[in-house]
């Protein structure tokens, strides 16, 4: 038996029945291209999600927050200042974990309200004010475009300075640069009870506004940063010691975020919160989030893949049908081959090779078609959803793995659906086959 010989014979058969072979392959072509399209789009969406989060550099972000103890003995669950996480505790944590923590990021919300520009006082914009430390801002997700970040000195002196996003700067002052040194008026009307509702801030920095995936869907609230000490004073807190329901930290490069967060939970709960009758500390990481998103996307992809798989099954049945026709048509040839000494295994092998070739060609065409469709769909999605995506590029990379699996799978279909007809051919009685008209 000779594989190359059999392949040549199979190609001969396919060539001599071009139309029939093409129609047979069509089922496989449609099935495989559907699988490729769906898996590629699925991976594209998944990569875009995780890629966006990776871009923000927050995969090693840990949020540390308070949570009520499950068997709390306290009758009223309100939080006292003594329940909150204090700057002192955070300092102690930094001492304990040292290099494992790259930076800590505490914030205090100074509430929501409106912002406007004293110069041309015609528009109010929705704003939320957040008190920030320099360390937090440096660790954070924003890129400074103009001016400077809130500095330690701003905090020490509780200055009324503000960092605003670039799109707000452009709307209010024409450009990011023009915004520097300008005075804006903020009217806080939601959130913490501010001791003073209306106050002026001087713009010292403009950070780059990056659209999120869904940001186009909601009306924009401009997020502005002020010194954390200023925020504390506005909200009536202790200007020198901060108290938080939660804070963020960023683990050092190479540190396992899940281990670090477990250690931090233990550090707080066996120390400061051991005797607290109502609250303890818990953590939340982006890893958890990513895992949830990924498993949801994988499930959707799997179900769609199954649906595409059904079309492959139908394609496979088509192949089997045409192979049965081919065996019947070539009964006499099979008889001659047997008379010339072909063993049953050689006949079986010949027809399986033919079926596999048919399916593999279909599979390869299907892969090419699927890749073209996936890239085209990606481009169209980018065009149609440009507003919602806000500048995020969808990365459509048909994976080599998916392509290899698809071609391999179509070969497997060839073997599976070719076996029965091939076996039928192999078992033909040589005398009957020779007499077949």
């Amino acid at each position, binding site marked *: *038996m*000779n594989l*190359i*010989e059999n392949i040549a*014979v199979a190609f*001969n*058969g396919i060539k*001599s029945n071009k139309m029939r072979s093409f129609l047979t392959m069509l089922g496989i072509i449609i099935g495989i291209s559907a699988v490729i399209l769906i898996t590629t789009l699925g991976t594209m969406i998944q990569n875009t999600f995780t890629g966006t989060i990776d871009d923000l550099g927050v995969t090693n972000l840990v949020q540390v927050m308070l949570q009520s103890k499950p068997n709390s003995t306290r009758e009223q669950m309100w939080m006292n200042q003594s329940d909150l996480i204090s700057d002192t505790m955070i300092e102690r944590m930094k001492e304990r974990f040292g290099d494992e923590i790259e930076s800590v990021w505490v914030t205090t919300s100074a509430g929501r309200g409106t912002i406007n520009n004293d110069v041309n006082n015609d528009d109010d914009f929705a704003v939320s004010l957040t008190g920030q430390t320099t360390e937090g801002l440096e660790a954070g997700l924003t890129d400074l475009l103009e001016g400077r970040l809130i500095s330690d000195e701003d905090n020490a002196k509780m200055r009324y300075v503000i960092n605003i996003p670039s799109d707000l700067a452009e709307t209010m002052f024409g450009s990011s640069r023009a915004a520097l040194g300008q005075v804006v008026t903020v009217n806080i009307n939601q959130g913490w009870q501010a001791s003073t509702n209306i106050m002026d801030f001087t713009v010292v920095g403009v950070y780059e506004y990056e659209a999120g995936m869904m940001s186009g869907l909601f009306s924009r609230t401009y997020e502005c940063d002020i010194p954390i000490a200023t925020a504390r004073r506005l909200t009536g807190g202790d200007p020198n010691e901060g108290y938080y329901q939660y804070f963020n930290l960023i683990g050092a490069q190479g540190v396992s975020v899940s281990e670090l967060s477990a250690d931090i939970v233990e550090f707080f709960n066996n120390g400061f919160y051991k005797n607290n009758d109502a609250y303890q500390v818990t953590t939340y990481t982006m890893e958890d989030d990513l895992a949830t998103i990924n498993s949801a996307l994988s499930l959707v992809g799997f179900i769609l893949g199954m649906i595409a798989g059904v079309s492959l099954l139908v394609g496979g049945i088509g192949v089997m049908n045409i192979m049965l026709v081919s065996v019947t048509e070539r009964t*006499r*040839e099979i*008889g*001659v*081959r*047997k*008379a*010339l*000494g*072909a*063993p*049953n295994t*050689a006949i079986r092998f010949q027809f399986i090779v033919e079926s596999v070739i048919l399916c593999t060609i279909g599979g390869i065409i299907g892969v090419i078609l699927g890749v073209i469709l996936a890239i085209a769909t990606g481009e169209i999605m980018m065009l149609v959803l440009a507003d919602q995506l806000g500048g995020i590029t969808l990365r459509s990379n048909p994976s080599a793995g998916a392509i290899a699996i698809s071609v391999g799978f179509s070969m497997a279909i060839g073997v599976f659906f070719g076996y029965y007809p091939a076996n039928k051919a192999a078992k033909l009685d*040589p*005398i009957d086959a*020779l007499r077949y008209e």
Partner: protein
Amino acid sequence: MDKMIIHMENIYKSFYVGTPNELEILHGLSFDVPEGQFLSVVGQSGSGKSTLMNLIGALDRPTGGSYVLDGLDVAKTEDKTLSEIRNKKIGFVFQTFNLISRTSALKNVELPMMYAGVSQKERTERAKAMLDMVDMSDRLKHMPNELSGGQKQRVAIARAMINNPAIILADEPTGALDTKTGRMVMDLFHKLHNEQGKTIILITHNPELAAETERIITLADGYITSDEAVVKS
């Protein structure tokens, strides 16, 4: 004493064995064929000629009796061994040529060697030499549908000869040819017989062709009614 290529003893062949319709076609045939004999088997339709041919050609097994072909007991072998016997010991020549369509003359002749596991290089060389012997070396790449009947039969004979079989089994080889090309094919058989000493079994219903051979076995109703040497005039 000549070496016996075929030894058939008390051969029975029945169909539908064990059913109420059991039908016995051959009723205990016995004959030997010495090496190098050119023999013909003649008989009317229904005489059991085709059944005997299938048995000789190892396409089927007898229901009873023993059949030894070139030292191999064919009666009790399994399918796989039968394929091997057909491949190496028997060269079939059919009335309707039975070349594989869409396959060149060269590839058709190579086919039995492929099943015998001969390397591609050797296959091509031997097939070319064999086609040269049947005077078809200028038609190597031609497809069967581009050949005349006589040419097809010459390719078929080359294919039958290629594995150097113990016997050539020709079933009405001239039946689909006109007199002139039929003559050419018969001459080729004589050449193979005279020059290479091939054992040839010719199945025919044409008494004139049978008379050209060395021995005629006549079948009627599943019995050998005569088995005699041809006296050359």
